[in-house]
């Protein structure tokens, strides 16, 4: 039982961590485009990025299933190039969690980039800093608390991911069974209440820690990234 519990928690943290780390650069690039870019179709991109936030998670999971199925466009590429499939694997669960965390992370990072006073960047340019040095020494450090807050938020969201995950990679103990999925499974089992209590307690504790960390980081930046 304890072993099982440990596996579930470890798997959840692994999937949440990988999903967050993998999404962070993508989310940052998208947030930068949306905050600073001027291009046709920006509204459309904004809408697409936010889609997982409003579409039922089951639909997102189903679309992932179609895309990554052996005959699906992405599944075929993965199979051909790397000889792997993420279907019913923990990697697939990480992809589902990443997909669901993306809009939240993009929103938070975008706010923090928009919060950087561009007049400071202008000052840096007149002091001889090119665009890259300006980005690395002014923009990024000033946006960093918001970016870290976004990562914590994404992590918390990944830990809670259920609908897209169970649709996409099913509920395989030891492989894709994260905390919410394990709770669901325990609820289906007669006499599983004790397990539910334990798992729920752990979920709440981890999520709360992540959220508070995110809030503290966001507050340090003086920006309103509040989710609580």
């Amino acid at each position, binding site marked *: 039982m304890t072993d099982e519990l440990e596996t579930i928690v470890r798997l959840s943290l692994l999937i949440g961590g990988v999903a967050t780390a993998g999404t962070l650069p993508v989310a940052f690039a998208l947030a930068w485009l949306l905050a600073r870019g001027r291009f046709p179709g920006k509204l459309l991109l904004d809408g697409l990025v936010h889609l997982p936030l409003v579409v039922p998670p089951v639909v997102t999971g189903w679309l992932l299933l179609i895309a990554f199925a052996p005959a699906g466009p992405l599944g075929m590429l993965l199979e051909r190039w790397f000889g792997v499939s993420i279907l019913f694997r923990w990697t697939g669960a990480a992809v589902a969690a990443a997909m669901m965390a993306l809009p939240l992370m993009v929103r938070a990072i975008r706010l923090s980039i928009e919060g950087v006073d561009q*007049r*400071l960047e*202008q*000052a*840096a*340019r*007149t*002091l*001889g*800093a*090119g665009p890259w040095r300006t980005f690395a*020494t*002014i923009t990024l*450090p*000033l946006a960093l608390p918001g970016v870290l807050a976004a990562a914590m938020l994404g992590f918390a969201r990944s830990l809670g991911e259920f609908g897209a995950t169970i649709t996409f990679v099913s509920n395989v103990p030891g492989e894709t069974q994260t905390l919410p999925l394990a709770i669901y499974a325990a609820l289906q089992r007669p006499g599983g209440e004790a397990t539910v209590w334990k798992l729920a307690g752990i979920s709440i504790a981890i999520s709360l820690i992540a959220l508070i960390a995110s809030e503290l980081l966001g507050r340090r930046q003086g920006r309103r990234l509040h989710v609580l």
Partner: protein
Amino acid sequence: MGGGRGGASMSFEVDVTARRGDAVVGATFQAGEGSTVLFGPSGAGKTSLLMMIAGLLRPDTGRVRVSGQVLFDAARRINVRPEDRRAGVVFQEPRLFPHLSVRRNLLYGAASAEGLEEIATRLDIAHLLDRWPRTLSGGEARRVAIGRALLRDPDFLLLDEPLASLDRARREEAMLMIERVRDETRLPMLIVTHDPEEAERLGRQIIRM
């Protein structure tokens, strides 16, 4: 570069226009050595003009030359990037980097820490080096901003309303400091102001906008 008054070379040769919303701002002037004041009421586009010379705002037409160097020429498609213009810009607000100490602000554009002590002493900010920008008074922040621009080792200085929002006593102090910087560095200097007294006192030449 010949021409100008008494054979002195021209420091600023500016002839630009730029569309800003519904209005077109721009100016045509030539300035000799020393300090030149851009004088006019608020909204005349003085700051925009300064930003065009600094390279932060792209003019639609015309050219900008400083000490004989072409920085912008619409016809020849020349637009030197702001980081390559070697301008010492002091903005209306100090624009100090909030996440860097005063020392690191001052050295941001400097090739080395060599001139730091001298300039810090000259501007009376030597005791502030380890402070954070948010703890500085308005006058202190402004002096740090001037020091930061000087330590960049600029070829010319652009000062946007350097005395605005300072009280009477501080204004006098700041005015003296600018005069000192002008006389000691001998850099071509363009100062934007809407205050006639300031214009009279700081400018060897006054351009009205």
